[in-house]
């Protein structure tokens, strides 16, 4: 889109997802990128966001007419509409994950962007986690021998809001916390999930979506892969959640904790109060008002790598790190998760 030396102009489409703030912060730290403005289906929310992040609130068509790339931070159900509007305007787009609540929508988005000749990426920040990249090096160096088993976790606190409204989110913990680790494993192993068995349940809260999400999967080469993506961290926990991966090979085991680089912070407040962070913490953000014990992430920010890659992709006219087609594959796994839970048996993933 832009020439090599020009500033890449980025817009944010919807701020329904908390990550919008993290992405705006990441953009502010990138030379050669500018957050031009924000559009939102909720004008008041959009205006507040614009004011908080020193940018402009704009009508969607106006914003799309003035940017090179757009980041969609809407509800899951609205990703498709926003992506299609960006594609129609010829704007490269990075969608929050999961790409869509279902395979049909995700596939349509991939095809629309292909037809429009715009790039489509999906926000998979764990590919930019330096601990995860170290594991990738160990795999490439052959340290593990033959990989035989992968054990992953991506637990979180219950996010509330539209995340627990099936019409907006498409589902609960399985929709929210399956794709990060699935995508990471797809990327690390060059193998896709072939089969899924799911144990889903609504246990921790009284809401219409599942919050227990425990999966037993097999990759195409037979490697076993289990994942716990439950919303099982208490509200008083010291951090938003986790993202871990244990890779068991015939010669070695490599354990990765993507957010292990944390300070332990204890704070007294006049009225006590509990720990925990104010948002899901991917940005390492800190709630200064909270008392008690909490963890403060100090490692490199995967979201910064994610956003920088998207900006470079727009500038260079190349695909972003995680393409829409790869995002579609993760969505296919999620669909198999729900199907397995409904049928009570393992399900072959249809890509």
């Amino acid at each position, binding site marked *: 889109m832009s020439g090599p030396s020009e500033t890449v102009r980025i817009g944010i489409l919807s701020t329904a997802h908390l990550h919008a703030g993290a992405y705006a912060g990441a953009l502010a730290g990138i030379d050669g990128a500018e957050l031009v403005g924000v559009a939102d289906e909720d004008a008041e929310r959009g205006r507040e966001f614009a004011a908080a992040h020193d940018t402009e609130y704009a009508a969607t068509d106006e914003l799309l007419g003035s940017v090179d790339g757009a980041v969609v931070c809407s509800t899951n159900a609205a990703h498709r509409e926003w992506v299609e509007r960006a594609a129609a305007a010829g704007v490269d787009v990075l969608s929050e994950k999961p790409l869509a609540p279902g395979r049909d929508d995700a596939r349509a988005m991939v095809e629309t962007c292909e037809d429009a000749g715009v790039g489509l990426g999906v926000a998979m920040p764990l590919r930019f986690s330096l601990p995860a990249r170290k594991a990738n090096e160990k795999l490439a160096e052959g340290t593990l021998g*033959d990989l*035989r*088993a992968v*054990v992953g976790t991506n*637990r979180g606190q219950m996010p509330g809001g539209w995340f627990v409204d099936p019409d907006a989110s498409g589902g609960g913990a399985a929709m929210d916390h399956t794709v990060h680790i699935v995508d990471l494993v797809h990327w690390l192993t060059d193998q896709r999930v072939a089969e899924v*068995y799911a*144990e889903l*349940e609504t*246990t*921790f809260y009284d809401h219409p979506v599942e*919050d*227990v999400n*425990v*999966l*037993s999967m*097999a990759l195409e080469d*037979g*490697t*076993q892969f*289990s994942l*716990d993506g*439950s919303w*099982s*961290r*208490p509200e008083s*926990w010291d951090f938003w959640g986790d993202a871990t991966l*244990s890779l*068991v*090979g*015939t*010669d*070695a*085991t490599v354990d990765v904790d993507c957010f292990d680089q944390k300070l332990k912070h204890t704070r007294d407040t006049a009225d006590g109060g509990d720990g925990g962070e104010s948002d899901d913490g991917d940005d390492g953000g800190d709630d200064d008002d909270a008392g008690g014990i909490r963890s403060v992430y100090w490692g490199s920010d995967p979201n910064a790598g994610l956003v920088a890659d998207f900006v470079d992709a727009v500038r260079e006219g190349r695909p972003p790190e995680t393409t829409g087609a790869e995002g579609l594959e993760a969505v296919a796994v999620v669909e198999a998760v729900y199907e397995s839970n409904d049928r*009570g*048996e*393992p399900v072959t993933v249809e890509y």
Partner: protein
Amino acid sequence: MAETHVSAYRSIDGVEVSAVASPNTAAEFVAEQGLAADTYASATELLDEADVDAVDVCTPTPTHRPVVEAAAERGVDVFCEKPIAGSLADARAIDDAAADAGITLMVGHVLRFFPQYERARAVVEDGGIGDPGVARAQRRSPFPSWGHGNWYADRERSGGVLVDLAIHDIDFLRWVVGDVDRVFARRSVWDEGEHAHLTMRFANGAVGHVDASWGLPESQELGQSLELAGTDGLVEFDGDDAPVTTRTAEGTAVSSPVERGGYQRELAAFVESLRTGSEPPVTARDAIDTLRVSLAASRSAAEGRPVDPAEVDA
């Protein structure tokens, strides 16, 4: 395991290891352990000739049944290592033999006696996490090449990691969370290595995840971790945390010293039940119910479908 038990018995007042039976290595073992014990080439020889109050069975799993039956016939009380047997048929025969003879029989599900596991259960029992939602346990070790004649490598005899290793955590989670309605498992076996995981669906709606490995390199120590997440809280234990770390020119060693470790507490409880005549804290019934879940997991891994432990009958 025999060494570990001898060491634990030393710390229990009024207990003496007075006889050791093992086909070829009894004398060597007694010398190594510094015991004043008579040696025998077989369990039946020991049972016929030695004057013992109880026997502690640390033999390979398929031999548990004949050894326990022989002890029961002679009215000798038994501590039997886990798994109680490799099949439900053998396990039931053991239970029946002990019941018919009226002997005390305890099975070595030792996690129930490890202070950190016992304390975690107490937190849950006290309502500290509300209702359990997700229970996770992990256990990883090098391949158990220490077994005589490498018998662990013969999966027909050892049952592999699901029946021999994951059974620790399966038993513990049953003890904490309750009965299991179904399991789904996957198992990878390679030369001198094995890894498996299973999901567990408990009758109360909670979900469990256990992963167990014989895949660590030989130089590595056993690793274990536990996590119980509930509606009102979370309790976590990571076995890699140790209070003592010694760094020398040769490397780093860690230890977690306790006044009475899991094996000591386990065997002290056995001795206590012998002295008082009370039911031991882990019965054959408990061990059978746990074995049933391990066998269901093995069947699930073999057949690629969820299995209700009630399906397992043999």
